[in-house]
């Protein structure tokens, strides 16, 4: 059976290599990809939205609808984990009566976590807030925030982590993140503009057109960061403990 797969793989490889003769060399400035649509982004992004980081502008403003549904792909993964790794109430142990801090189990890990975690969360908030000016934004910030929660869960044990971070409001916050994103879009529709057209926020925020775009992108980044941090942490908790702790549902 494996011989067929080897044959198909080698055939696919030769077909793909024969394709490369048509491709432009990586890095030449006159390739069609660098001539058609992207010059518009590079030239007009700062003029229209006051955001130097063009990737964040294209991510949240020009192709904002893509990112809305990409965040809901992450949310679907979170809901899928709730459905697949489901345990009924009696199979779960309630963790309210577990000892608060597991003393002395792994000294190095716990102390380094005490030192590192606040810095990680501060850096995560910096990355979310500075998505406009430096590389970063909702995704990276959210994942670093989730990494700090996971670090705490690894060193102090999952029940303490569950107890400490948004005890049973987690699943609400995950939905809230994407709801912020879709809500900003729907708000633009209510204000008689197209979906995700941030210019509509102009008369609410009483700012100029460009700044309305900039604030719209900021709200959207916050929504994305919220969802991604909650869902990534929930993925770790679900996969590490197999959903065996009596927490609300996420």
């Amino acid at each position, binding site marked *: 059976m494996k011989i067929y797969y080897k044959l198909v793989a080698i055939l696919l490889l030769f077909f793909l290599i024969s394709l490369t003769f048509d491709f432009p060399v990586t890095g030449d400035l006159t390739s069609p990809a660098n001539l058609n649509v992207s010059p518009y982004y590079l030239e007009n992004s700062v003029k229209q939205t006051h955001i130097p*980081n063009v990737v964040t502008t294209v991510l949240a403003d020009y192709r904002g609808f893509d990112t809305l549904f990409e965040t809901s792909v992450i949310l679907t993964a979170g809901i899928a984990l709730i459905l697949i790794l489901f345990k009924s109430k009696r199979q779960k142990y309630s963790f309210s009566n577990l000892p608060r801090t597991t003393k002395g189990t792994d000294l190095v890990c716990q102390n380094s976590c005490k030192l590192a975690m606040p810095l990680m969360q501060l850096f995560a908030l910096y990355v979310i807030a500075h998505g406009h000016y430096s590389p*970063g*934004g909702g995704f990276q910030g959210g*994942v*670093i925030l989730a*990494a700090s929660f*996971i670090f705490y869960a690894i060193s102090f044990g999952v029940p303490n982590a569950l107890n400490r971070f948004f005890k049973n409001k987690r699943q609400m916050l995950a939905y809230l993140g994407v709801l912020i994103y879709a809500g900003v879009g729907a708000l633009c529709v209510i204000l008689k503009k197209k979906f995700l057209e941030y210019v509509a926020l102009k008369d609410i925020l009483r700012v100029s057109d460009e700044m309305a775009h900039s604030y719209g992108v900021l709200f959207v980044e916050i929504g994305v960061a919220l969802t991604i941090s909650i869902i990534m942490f929930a993925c770790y908790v679900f*996969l590490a403990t197999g959903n065996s702790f009596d927490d609300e549902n996420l």
Partner: protein
Amino acid sequence: MLEFIILLILVIFAFLSLNVKNLFTASIILGAYSFLTCVLLSKMLAVDVAFTEACVGSGVSTVLMVATLCKVGFKTKD
């Protein structure tokens, strides 16, 4: 020239990660594979993508893989 060397190491890591017998080693090599992808991406001026690949690719997915391996076991036949 440096890109070409990193790409060769990447292919070796991918081949190694698929053929090693212990699953734990395989997932750690996959973490190294994602890190080298992140290095390559930053050389190709894609700094945002490199940042995300570093956090998500070598960071969270390796943690998720090792978390499942602790429950599933490290042995594999092929």
